[in-house]
């Protein structure tokens, strides 16, 4: 498969544990944030999003937290499974025309 992420931070977790992936964003004026999952050889897949008027949003097994004071996002994955192994990107929406700016990404490795 594609050797994505030679210089990306890596998070290794045991199957069944919870994972927390962090992201710092750049523009204090951004008001919409998205987490994407990218598996080897595939395009990014939407996971969950959050607007700046919220500080927490929950989905199925995933929670996104937003701290606007320090421009920080986190993605929490509950009961991590081997299928969660991928590169995770946060993205911020930079204005009125749906332009996304992606962060550098984090590799999540799940150990069985």
């Amino acid at each position, binding site marked *: 498969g*594609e*050797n*994505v*992420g*030679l*210089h*990306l931070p890596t998070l290794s977790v045991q199957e069944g544990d919870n994972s927390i992936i962090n992201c710092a964003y750049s523009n204090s004026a951004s*008001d*919409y944030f*998205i987490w*994407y999952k990218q598996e080897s*050889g*595939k*395009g*990014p*897949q*939407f996971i969950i*999003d959050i*607007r700046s008027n919220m500080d927490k949003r929950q989905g199925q097994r995933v929670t996104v937290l937003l701290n606007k004071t320090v421009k920080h996002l986190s993605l929490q994955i509950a009961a991590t499974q081997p299928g969660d192994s991928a590169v995770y*990107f946060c*993205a911020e*929406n930079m*204005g*009125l*025309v*749906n*332009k*996304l*700016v*992606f*962060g*550098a*990404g984090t590799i999540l490795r799940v150990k069985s």
Partner: protein
Amino acid sequence: EAGVAQSPRYKIIEKRQSVAFWCNPISGHATLYWYQQILGQGPKLLIQFQNNGVVDDSQLPKDRFSAERLKGVDSTLKIQPAKLEDSAVYLCASSQGVREQETQYFGPGTRLLVL
């Protein structure tokens, strides 16, 4: 619902050659995006179309890159002449409209290697 289609999936060329990539967005999606993803980095937007008009091409290297979406559906991205630093995955994405907070759906990408 069919996803975003891209072809070819892989391409190897020599520097100074030209190459073209094709994208067919999700049916009914008005907005189409081309991204470049260099190894180890997040995707970077090259150009954004709404129907057949360009919304944003501020990061497209226009001396060598061009893109079109003549009928407002599928799109082609061309590089001529290619440089070594163009080696990357080229991702196409689409969304229903161009408003903020519309989910962008990505295709599998075209992996380009320039030798």
